[in-house]
């Protein structure tokens, strides 16, 4: 049995297969590499996505993540019974959710905290915690459980103490436990854009203690719900709103609108987009390369194919021979791709685990993803081979065995003959390209695609950079944003201005609201801002500062899109604060924004409308950089100040986060894209060399120097590469456009931008790949055995 297998292994065709691979290992490796990149990126991206989704679902279900949240101002505990009786509600719990300020020794700036109550003596039935360390707070004590990321950022342990200002009163809180919670996977301080554990803490405190501190005994200001599977969500939401309306309910919302979950879903959408887009491109390029390699072999072996047919080999067994050749390439690519994808996926999973604070995240893409990746790779390989073998296999043996007639250039007519300024070398280059327009175009396209995916991969970083630069240099020009605990008389702005080191101050009035247009609605607060603002500025699509239009609302582009409203439309704004007025207001302007879905009004109009008498909820400050720390200290001690955020730390946090998540992804994508580009250029050059060995040898015999021959051979590579550069730039921009459009969500509108640096990087990699390939080929031209090359038949 083994013996007969061994014999079969050394059957002539099998031996030929092994020799072919041995002879062309460089090319085999290049194509395997490209194919492997496609497989790896598919496994990595889709595997990461699957693992994230599975982990999230398990995490939510195990810790009873709420289906609905309903914030209110202050509702008595008895109302819970009404809420529980709403059809479709399986379970309801009331809790206190408030903001506080912490004084952390590691942080000069005040740190904001969100404090949520826990039922005394037990874990909540909805939104349970994963207690990593320690215990729940003792009843009535000023003990807290703190979020793991905050503990880590401030090096806190169970038993440590934290100084806090709760409702204007300084207290010392003792840490009883450290926990993770599914509802705060992605925790962002109000008004911030990015999680920052140094500057924002989530903590849990016993109901009794927190109720005392905030004067909420016997009441709750947030209800959370688990629903029956069959529940109609809109109906349940509106019934909850009816119950809580008298208690300052600001509108119940479903998990889909919960900030943490929404961020996660938008991140998943991005992964899904990239995972669906990049692997097919990579595999397509691999199929193209495989086709180039096999075409060359088949053309060179045309005579042998004729001979095999003459001996009685069936066409199918000949096709099978080449399929097996491709099969080995595919096998190397798939195995390598699986391994690399698994390793990188594990790495990505670790990054996401830390970033999202999952208790556990195991990279487990499931067999399906590996198999699908392999199927795509095999399909790419088979397609490549069939296209290459098709023509030759249909030749009659006698025709196949005869040397092919010289390539017919006559149909080009006297193309390029008239241009007397061309020398024969240039003429050969031009005619060779024109004679094989399809192949030249494909080579050009292959290089261009390589360049395009580099640009596409890089452009993610460009978009983030533009987003950050626009946000922090054009829109939020203030150094500090101060939020007050209660609405304040406008005179407070003058008081802030009077502080030594404060250069400018602008008030703002923020009110929670629901904005409706037709049957669409969004829970979106409205911010009243001053005319001719210098600190927090609205900008138009040309990045010019504009004013909020009077007598109406100015919507962000993303909000207008979500509501399908345009300037001139009347939207209904239900304010959830103060007098809780509902107004129909015209949309006056739509302004581009990259972050969130803000809505603005003129501060005076808004104040008049809400009868606030000029009161404000916060202020933007510009301060002397040397005085920053002192001003923080002052603000931190002001009882009227609920929170202070600094632009500098927001910007840094955003840049760091983006570097961590996008940076890794961009790095891998750029790496693979660069490898593919190099693979295409190098294979193209080598194939051209092999195909034209005879021409090269003839030229050398005629007395052409190595350099002159290279000029002809590599001139074509240069011309095609040169043509590919603008095409690659164009395709890269289109790809960036496509990726960004698919990555944008209501939370982030990813701007389409490709920096000059990205274009330059991609161009440089392509040119370097071409130069290195040219150098390798030039060496082979110099070493070419003229006599042997002339003996081989074309």
């Amino acid at each position, binding site marked *: 049995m083994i013996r007969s297998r061994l014999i079969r292994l050394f059957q002539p065709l099998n031996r030929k297969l092994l020799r072919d691979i041995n002879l062309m290992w460089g090319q085999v490796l290049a194509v395997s590499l490209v194919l492997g990149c496609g497989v790896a990126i598919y496994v990595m991206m889709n595997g990461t996505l699957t693992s994230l989704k599975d982990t999230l679902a398990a995490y939510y279900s195990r810790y009873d993540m709420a289906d609905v949240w309903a914030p209110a101002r202050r509702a008595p505990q008895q109302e819970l019974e009404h809420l529980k009786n709403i059809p479709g509600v399986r379970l309801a719990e009331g809790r206190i959710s408030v903001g506080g300020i912490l004084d952390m020794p590691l942080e000069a700036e005040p740190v904001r905290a969100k404090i949520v109550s826990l039922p005394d003596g037990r874990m909540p039935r909805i939104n349970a915690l994963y207690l990593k360390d320690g215990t729940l707070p003792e009843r009535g004590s000023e003990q807290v459980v703190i979020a793991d990321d905050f503990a880590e950022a401030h090096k806190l342990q169970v038993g440590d103490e934290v100084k806090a200002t709760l409702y204007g009163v300084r207290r010392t809180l003792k840490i009883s436990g450290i926990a993770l919670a599914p509802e705060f996977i992605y925790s962002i301080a109000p008004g911030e854009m990015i999680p920052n554990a140094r500057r924002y803490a989530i903590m849990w405190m016993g109901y009794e203690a927190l109720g005392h501190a905030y004067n909420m005994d016997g009441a709750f200001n947030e209800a959370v719900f688990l629903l029956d599977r069959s529940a109609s969500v809109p109906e349940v939401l509106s019934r909850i709103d009816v119950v809580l309306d008298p208690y300052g309910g600001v509108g119940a919302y479903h998990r889909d609108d919960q900030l943490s979950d929404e961020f996660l879903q938008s991140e998943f959408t991005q992964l899904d987009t990239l995972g669906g887009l990049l692997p097919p491109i990579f595999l397509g390029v691999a199929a193209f390369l495989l086709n180039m390699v096999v075409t060359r072999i088949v053309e060179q072996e045309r005579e042998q194919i004729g001979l095999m047919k003459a001996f009685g080999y069936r066409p199918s067994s000949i096709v099978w021979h080449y399929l097996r050749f491709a099969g080995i390439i595919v096998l190397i690519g798939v195995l390598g791709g699986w391994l690399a994808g698994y390793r990188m996926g594990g790495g990505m999973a670790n990054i996401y685990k830390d970033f999202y604070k999952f208790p556990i995240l195991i990279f487990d893409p499931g067999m399906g993803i590996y198999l699908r990746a392999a199927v795509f790779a095999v399909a790419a390989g088979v397609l490549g081979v069939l296209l290459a073998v098709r023509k030759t296999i249909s030749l009659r043996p006698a025709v196949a065995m005869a040397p092919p007639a010289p*390539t017919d250039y006559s149909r080009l007519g006297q193309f390029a*003959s008239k241009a007397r300024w061309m020398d024969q070398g240039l003429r*050969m280059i031009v005619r060779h390209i024109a004679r094989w327009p399809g192949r030249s175009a494909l080579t050009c396209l292959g290089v261009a695609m390589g360049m395009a995916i580099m640009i596409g991969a890089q452009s993610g970083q460009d978009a983030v950079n533009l987003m950050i630069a626009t946000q922090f240099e054009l829109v939020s020009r203030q150094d500090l944003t101060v939020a007050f605990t209660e609405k304040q008389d406008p005179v407070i702005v003058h008081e802030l201005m009077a502080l030594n080191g404060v250069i400018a101050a602008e008030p703002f009035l923020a009110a929670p609201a629901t904005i409706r247009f037709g049957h669409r609605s969004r829970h979106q607060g409205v911010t009243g801002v001053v005319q001719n603002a210098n600190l927090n500025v609205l900008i138009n699509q040309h990045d010019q500062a504009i004013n909020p239009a009077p007598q109406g609302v100015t919507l962000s582009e993303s909000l207008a899109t979500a509501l399908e409203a345009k300037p001139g439309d009347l939207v209904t704004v239900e304010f959830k604060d103060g007098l809780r007025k509902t107004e129909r207001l015209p949309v006056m302007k739509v302004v581009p924004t990259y972050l969130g879905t803000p809505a603005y009004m003129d501060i005076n109009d808004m104040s008049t409308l809400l009868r606030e008498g000029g009161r404000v909820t916060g202020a933007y400050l510009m301060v002397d950089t040397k005085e920053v720390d002192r001003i923080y200290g002052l603000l931190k001690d002001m009882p009227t100040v609920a929170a202070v955020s600094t632009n500098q730390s927001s910007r840094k946090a955003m840049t760091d986060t983006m570097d961590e998540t996008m940076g890794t992804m961009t790095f891998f994508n750029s790496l693979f894209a660069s490898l593919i580009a190099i693979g295409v250029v190098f294979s193209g050059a080598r194939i051209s060399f092999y195909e034209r060995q005879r*021409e090269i040898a003839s*030229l*050398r*015999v*005629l007395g052409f*120097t190595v350099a002159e021959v290279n000029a002809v051979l590599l001139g074509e590579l240069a011309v095609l590469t040169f043509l590919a550069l603008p095409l690659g730039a164009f395709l890269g921009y289109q790809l960036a456009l496509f990726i960004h459009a698919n990555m944008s969500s209501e939370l982030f509108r990813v701007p389409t931008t490709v920096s000059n640096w990205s274009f330059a990087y991609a161009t440089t990699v392509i040119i370097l790949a071409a130069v290195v390939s040219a150098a390798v080929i030039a060496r082979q031209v110099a070493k070419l055995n003229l*006599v042997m090359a002339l003996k081989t038949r074309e």
Partner: protein
Amino acid sequence: MTIRDGEVIVLLGPSGSGKSTLLNILGGLDTPTDGHVFYHGRDLTTMTDRDLTSYRRDNVGFVFQNYNLMPGLTAEENVELVTEIASNPLKAADALHLVGLGERLRHFPSELSGGEQQRVAIARAIAKRPGVLFCDEPTGALDSTTSLKVLNALNRVVDELGTTMLMVTHHQGIAPLAHRVLHFKDGSIDREVINEVQARPEDIHL
């Protein structure tokens, strides 16, 4: 062995007897394991690759059995390939007239018959006015009528330009065209025959 300027030599012998190897060494395409080759006093065997390239460029013309034309260039352009880099070349059109292809200047190799392609190769080889013309089985792929046309073309250029020519063939019938015939056997020259009178191509039978 010495070859005089203007001499026509035919190298005869069975496959593997060393004819082509000698031709390749003399033409600067190959280097001998032993011995020396002098061209007008310069030792080919000690030349660098660059020197060999310029030796071929300036002094040598080649004609091969399978033509080796550039398929992407017309007949005239194939010849110009050489005239562009030679120091005192014929005009490409004149070279093609000399081999009887004055009417087919603008044709691509794919539009020419085998004999015509070979005559373009000859025109290309002699357009630089080489000192020596090496022909390796120039009629090997052609029928007898076409072969005669090719031999005629070769004879004419050698006559008109006074070029030295070495032609490898296994066709006995071509031998009378030479001044000298070298018979090869097992890798060495077995015997040498001198033709007192040279035949014209029209006098021989293939």
